[in-house]
């Protein structure tokens, strides 16, 4: 038993120092495993709480979902033994990632939202967070009209202890304006984020990449150019930003495709087996757009993919690589659309290739 405790503490300590990502999660999973082997539920819970955080913020949503389910099960069995606030708070991270997986049917996503609503009410907070996440999830599922309705409900209610920070809330509303093609209003709304007056662990990281092309489209090219390296530096080392890497590549594809290549070299091998299908798809679409663009303007280029990449063989066969990326991306898009009951992502992908490719 002494051995277990020392080993567990060592693993947790070592993980603590690491950035959210694969190495950290490997250590935490090991810690959870040995806790399970020793039958120590409290330690298993502690390790999984850390997995949920590292997974949600480090690009491993599936691991977060799995760990969180386990935690919730333990909590329901023995609510007195665990910290209710943290558990309720983390529900938001986890539910936010579920729609990325086309294998989860829409009804199950609905019942998760209802479960969240029920638990939050029991915990003593309003429906505000419920509407807010319904708004977010509707956006992810291509249901922009429904998202708009939820946004209205959400705005009627007052902030409470489970509300996201104001930077995050602002960020999502900017995203909504962007998705509904209101570039100018979006950029205006994002001003506090751009000027660094509103920030948190996730903002402006996840906001700026989506403003590059809108700024460019609005003719504010200098601002976009200045923002690009700054924004990229913030996110470069965290795989949770797969979609954001894609936005950078897409932007560079439009303004200066050669500059997009190092990003493709770096991130394709990291993201080719990314856990999150939706984000992987977004990255692939932008990567394909870049290859299209380079092909179209006839500039020669080389790709430097490592032998461990599953696209290694295609590094010199640009056409085939592009085709493979598009094929995989559209397979995911179709699967998501089937689940969502619309044709949002297939259209989205085609338009993206048209604009950026």
């Amino acid at each position, binding site marked *: 038993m002494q051995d277990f405790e020392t080993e567990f503490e060592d693993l947790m300590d*070592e993980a603590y120092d690491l950035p959210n990502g694969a190495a950290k999660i490997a250590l935490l999973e090991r810690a959870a495993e040995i806790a399970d082997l020793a039958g120590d539920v409290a330690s298993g819970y502690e390790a999984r709480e850390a997995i949920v955080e590292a997974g949600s913020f480090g690009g491993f949503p599936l691991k977060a979902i799995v760990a969180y*389910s*386990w935690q919730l099960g333990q909590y*329901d069995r023995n609510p007195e033994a665990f910290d209710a606030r943290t558990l309720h708070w983390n529900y938001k991270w986890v539910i936010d990632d579920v729609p990325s997986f086309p294998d989860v049917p829409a009804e199950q996503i609905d019942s998760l939202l209802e*479960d969240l609503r029920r638990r939050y009410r029991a915990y003593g907070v309003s429906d505000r967070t419920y509407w807010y996440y319904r708004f977010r999830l509707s956006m992810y599922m291509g249901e922009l009209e429904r998202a708009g309705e939820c946004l209205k409900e959400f705005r009627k209610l007052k902030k409470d202890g489970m509300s996201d920070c104001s930077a995050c809330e602002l960020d999502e509303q900017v995203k909504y304006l962007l998705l509904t093609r209101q570039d100018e209003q979006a950029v205006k709304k994002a001003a506090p984020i751009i000027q660094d007056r509103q920030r948190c662990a996730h903002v402006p990281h996840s906001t700026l990449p989506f403003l590059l092309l809108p700024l460019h489209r609005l003719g504010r090219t200098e601002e976009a150019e200045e923002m690009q390296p700054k924004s990229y530096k913030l996110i470069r080392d965290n795989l949770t930003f797969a979609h954001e890497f894609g936005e950078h590549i897409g932007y560079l594809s439009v303004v200066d495709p050669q500059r997009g290549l190092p990003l493709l070299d770096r991130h394709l*091998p990291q993201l080719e087996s990314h856990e999150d299908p939706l984000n992987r798809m977004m990255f692939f679409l932008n990567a394909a757009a870049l290859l299209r663009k380079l092909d179209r303007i006839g500039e020669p280029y080389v790709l430097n993919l*490592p032998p*461990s990449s599953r696209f290694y063989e295609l590094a010199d066969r640009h056409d085939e690589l592009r085709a493979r990326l598009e094929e995989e991306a559209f397979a995911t898009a179709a699967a998501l659309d089937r689940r969502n009951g619309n044709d949002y992502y297939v259209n989205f992908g085609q338009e993206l290739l048209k604009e950026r490719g």
Partner: protein
Amino acid sequence: MTDSQEYRFQVNLGGMIDILSNHLYSSPRVFLRELLQNATDAITARMDLDPSHRGEVYVELAGSGTGATLLMQDNGIGLTEEDVHEFLAMIGHSSKRNGTELLGETSFIGRFGIGLLSCFMVSDEIVMLTQSAKGGPSIEWRGKPDGTYSIRKLDAALSPGTKVYLRCKPDTDFYFEADTVELDLLHYGALLPYPIRLSEGGRERRINGELPDWIVRPERAAGSRDEVLRFGESMLGERFRDFIPLRTSTGRTGGIAYILPHAVNLNAKRSHKVYLKRMLISEQADNILPEWAFFVKCLIWTDELQPTASREHFYENEQLERVRCELGESIRSELIAMSETDPKRLGRIIEMHALSMKNLAAEDDEFYRLIHRWLPFESTYGNKTLGELLDERRTLYYTASLDHYRQLRHVASAQSMLVVNGGYIYEAELLEALPRIVRGADTRRLLPEDLSLAFTDLNAEERSAALEASRAADLALQRFRCRVMLKRFKPEELPALFTLPEEAATLRSIERAGEESPQAFASVLGSLGGSMQSGAGSYSILYLNLNNPVVQRLFMGRPTSRLGTLVEMLYANALMMGHYPMSRQELALLNTGILSLIDWSMESEKGE
């Protein structure tokens, strides 16, 4: 706006002093720094008027214990009566200059007053005699901590400058002891370009020596190596062996980064000594260098950063960000230069500080490219540098956790695979990034199933001999979604190796979590797991080693009806050896298996 009127804030000086001493400053001893700062500012101001003026600071201690007094005298610009009124007004009247007085960026006069207030932490009365270099009468000011003060014009004219007298307040006599004062004066004023003298008990000594030229021009430090190292030892209290000069492009920040002569923990507190306008501002400045630079302890001077109100740290702003980047760049470029001119020296530094070097390399591709050959790693070929490992020209397999490495290293080295331990901080990340840095380098994360590629297949004869038994074994583990593979591999003591492809591992964890989850989540997990079950990758594999005598007997010997149970036991055993957590079903296997074994052994005893 004609009827608008200006009001003044009423300030309770007693409350103000309490704020300063209990909340703003870290210790009462900073009063000495504040006095020295005032003296320095006054001398600077006077030198602006008269560049040939030679500044001097004189400190005198008299009496002892609670009767002790301290005098600090400077020959700076001095204050006119108007100046005195102005600073007093400003302390209580923050609206006049946008309230920035307490926030560091402020006029000489405003700062002067705030500095003076800090003396109330150690003295119940402050007496200041001052004569302005601009003329006018000499002034005496007496202040009390309750906010009352008196001003008197003196008949005799003093020489220009300021004298401040403090009288020890109960329980602060420590701050008036000669040793403390001497230490603090040196501490705060070591880099001041004019003499500070301390007189006590009739003895007078100079506190600070002549300033060496390389402090101001760090690029010349290499020429005075021994002197620089000695200076570092006296200022930072450690015996260093190497250093790197620091300088920003503006030339307004510079210093010496001493290489720590011992390894430091990643979380160790950085404690650089930083001088702002030649006055010590902090011994614990942790934000002036990039995080990765924890293998150095620095002496830094700057005149381009903005101190916080307590004057003990710097504001985190763009200016600081730029200075931090450029100081980091000084270190980085020196290391890069070393890789060409003095690789041995670089090797020594890297060996001592591998952890922070790896951190830096993980953040910065260019740096990684330049130093990658010297980074040390643990591998199945021994402790080697990455350069040596690359020279093997093999696939570098790496593990993402130490535990994984320990588990697989023996099997891997028996197959003579080159496996690198990526389980320490940043290592897996670096190995993953290596192909981007070194073209053609082949690094792969080691998955247990990769090991099996090195296992030998059975020959045709063995295969047909073991066919029946293999099928039965496979069938026995079907319900655990595990396939049995019969191979030959080293070491022969190992009967079985359980491997779990990533997809199967995910599925396994989904199923185990599903057993424990509430309904809404259990169904989501079901959907996520359901889509995976179809793939061949969702099966785990149990490799059985025909080189092992027991396995040999089980599969090549007389057929036995107990094969199923025995394979289940090998499976459970392999799970345990690999430290895999077991499901309830698997734990049950172990239970029934052991009972069977006991039962069989008793039967065979009966038969004897």
